[in-house]
């Protein structure tokens, strides 16, 4: 079980003031429909990048779905984040094909460069480094995905170079 994903950081999730009224159209769209819980959470995450405590409470209040049910579902699926994430998420693929072609090196090089551990966000909230199971681009292994762009046939150095360039472009 993904025990690590259940740990939430109260301080970091509380520090962002969110405009909760953004949730209203989403709630109106899904309220009362069967099987609506996952789309509600997906929608909320799309709006804010993660699901904050306040967002959970509003969803529970307005839809009548018990908070415990919501939290149970949110912690079950890998997709849902309970903490804020960086502007760019670096998804380093650790599928089988990437694993046997040294995906570990990619993650380690990026950890060293960004000075964060796997799953963490950089201080400037520019990057979140994440390992994922499989991006389905096995023929280009090892790969990583930043935004919608996939980068293939990587080495540690190449990955670091790409990540540096995006930050340079993003800060200008």
């Amino acid at each position: 079980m993904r025990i690590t994903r259940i740990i939430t950081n109260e301080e970091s999730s509380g520090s962002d003031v969110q405009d909760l009224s953004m949730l209203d159209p989403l709630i109106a769209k899904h309220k009362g429909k069967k099987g609506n819980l996952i789309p509600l959470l997906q929608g909320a995450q799309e709006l804010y990048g993660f699901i904050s405590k306040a967002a959970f409470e509003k969803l529970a209040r307005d839809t009548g779905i018990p908070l415990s049910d919501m939290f149970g579902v949110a912690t079950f699926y890998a997709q849902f984040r309970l903490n804020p994430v960086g502007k760019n998420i670096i998804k380093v693929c650790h599928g089988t094909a990437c694993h046997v072609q040294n995906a570990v090196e990619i993650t380690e090089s990026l950890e060293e460069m960004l000075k964060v551990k796997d799953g963490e966000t950089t201080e400037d909230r520019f990057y979140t480094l994440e390992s994922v199971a499989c991006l389905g681009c096995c023929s280009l292994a090892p790969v990583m995905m930043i935004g919608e762009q996939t980068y293939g046939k990587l080495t540690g150095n190449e990955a670091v170079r790409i990540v540096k360039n995006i930050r340079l472009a993003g800060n200008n």
Partner: protein
Amino acid sequence: MIPKNFLSINQSINQSINQSIHQSVNPSISQSINQSIHQSVNPSINQSINQSVNPSISQSINQSINQSISQSVNQSISQSVNQSISQQFNNYNMPTTVTVGLGSCGIAAGANKTYDKIKALKESDNLDFKLKKTSCVGMCYREPLVEITDETGTYLYGEVDADRAVEVIEKHINQQAPIRDYIVYTDLFDAPENDFIGAQVKIVLRNCGYMDPESIEEYESRDGYQAIKKIAAENTGREVVIDTILKSGLRGRGGGGFPTGMKWKFANANKSADKYVICNADEGDPGAFMDRSVLEGDPHSVLEGMIIAAYAIEATGGVIYCRAEYPLAIKRLNIAIKQAHEHGYLGKNIFGIEGFNLDIYIKEGAGAFVCGEETALIASIEGERGMPRKRPPFPAVSGLWKKPTNINNVETYANIPWIIIHGAEAYAQYGTEKSKGTKVFALAGKVRHSGLVEVPMGMTIRDVIFKLGGGIKNNKRFKAVQMGGPSGGCIPEFLSDTIVDYDSVNATGAIMGSGGMVVMDETTCMVDVAKFFLDFTCKESCGKCTFCRMGTKRMLEILDRITNGYGREGDLEKLEELAFQIKDNSLCGLGQTAPNPVLTTIKYFRDEYEAHINHKKCPAKVCRPLLTYKVDEEKCTGCMVCLKNCPVKAITGERKQKHFINQEMCTKCGVCFSKCKFESILLS
């Protein structure tokens, strides 16, 4: 797409078929063949006159004449038919088309830039060709791919980045001089990848890479929606449709291998006002990407398969449960569903069948491997935690919203229209006694040609890897192939003459699974691979069954110890005991199969485990804590490169003096080994 004067083409094709047959076969049998060809060729030509008419015609010809003549004659006919058809076509001034492969793999390799470049060139220089998009043709290792079809034939260019695109357009389009060195596949001469395509039988992938997946018209021009129209026109009964699928021998392609026709029969037998068809597109196996390619390359065939299933079991609703990690597949499915609605192929009283109402919607998965299990998938659609439940009742009795439900995998559905059009016998002619038809495999890992291949069941694993896959990268030695993902196992080199069918693969301890084949060479540590998969299943266990939840954790801890140099005598026995307990005491497929990677590697690579445990060595030199880096004093030139690059300053030495690695400080990162230009770092 269809030329206005196709009737005259049709006639002239028939003439040329007749002529070519007369030339190649003796007159007495040619007459009967002629008749059967006339009958079978005409309709399919009418339906599918476009650039790729050749395969579909030759296929239908092959079927109708297979019984009456020998194979050599058969080949010579289809060859001459192909030639004459392409000659006929070329006389009708088909416009030159340039098609760029824009599947996920192509895009990752930079195909969007290639497409934009060609588009810009076309506009700035006012070039006269049609620019089209298609999806993955399976040759992922040659991406980005650009296909040019002109009056002389079809040429597939490989590794076309933006720069090469400029060159190809200039030479091929402007100067009519194809660049032979870049051509990877063509039917006109011997190109490097001709065998890769030639050795395959494409049923599921019949359209992938051959048409624009965002165009319903192109799908229809390639027999699309003809299967369901045929059912409607001939008023085929539900039982007859189910019987056809049963007779075809199609088994579930998601991994289970349950006969599809049986599933439909059960779902049909349970009467209810509401019933559902579900497409399982939650392709979770790491190292498998067949379903992604089908969804991206041919979404309509999946929809048509679902529509036929819905007809057969009288379903009223359809859901495609697709992983959120496949944004392009979801986008193209959405387009396909919208187009199907616009054409009246979804909605009320579809295909003129009174009372046949069907809507299909997409449900995005939220990232849980266990949701590939059908009862967990249903729970997830219902908005719950994706935890499997006890069966029976099976979904065919009580599935989505407790209604009878039929669940099939993407590849299974994509087979259905082909089977309905060509008949159960045509499908069953491929494959082995108990595993009929073809199977798509995703080749990845240490294999030269990583990509998608579709082969008839019964081919040997060796042929798939060496003939289609091109063998092992960097001339390394083939060690094993991992089949079936986290539920499967590693098949060693000495068993690679095993044929691919459900039962033969099961006999090795692996499973067919959804079709991932991850190839491993001598530099892959099998203990590490077993640990990798167990780490995966341990994280993905839903936690419902204690044996799966705790057992996988305990097994992982043991493997962790072994790979860190703390293996103990008796560890292997403990692993095996835990493995059998987990297999016996888990509710769903995840737990029942989770120990397979460990069991198969212990069975076939016990010596590697023993080297780790008894000698604290990793023979493949993968498990870091078991490695030792030393300086070869003979070879070391004292260049100081390793010393400067060592992240923990564990290397000491003066310029032009032998260096020394402090073993206590060394973190075994391998930087010195990769940086040394004189091969003077020894790894043991």
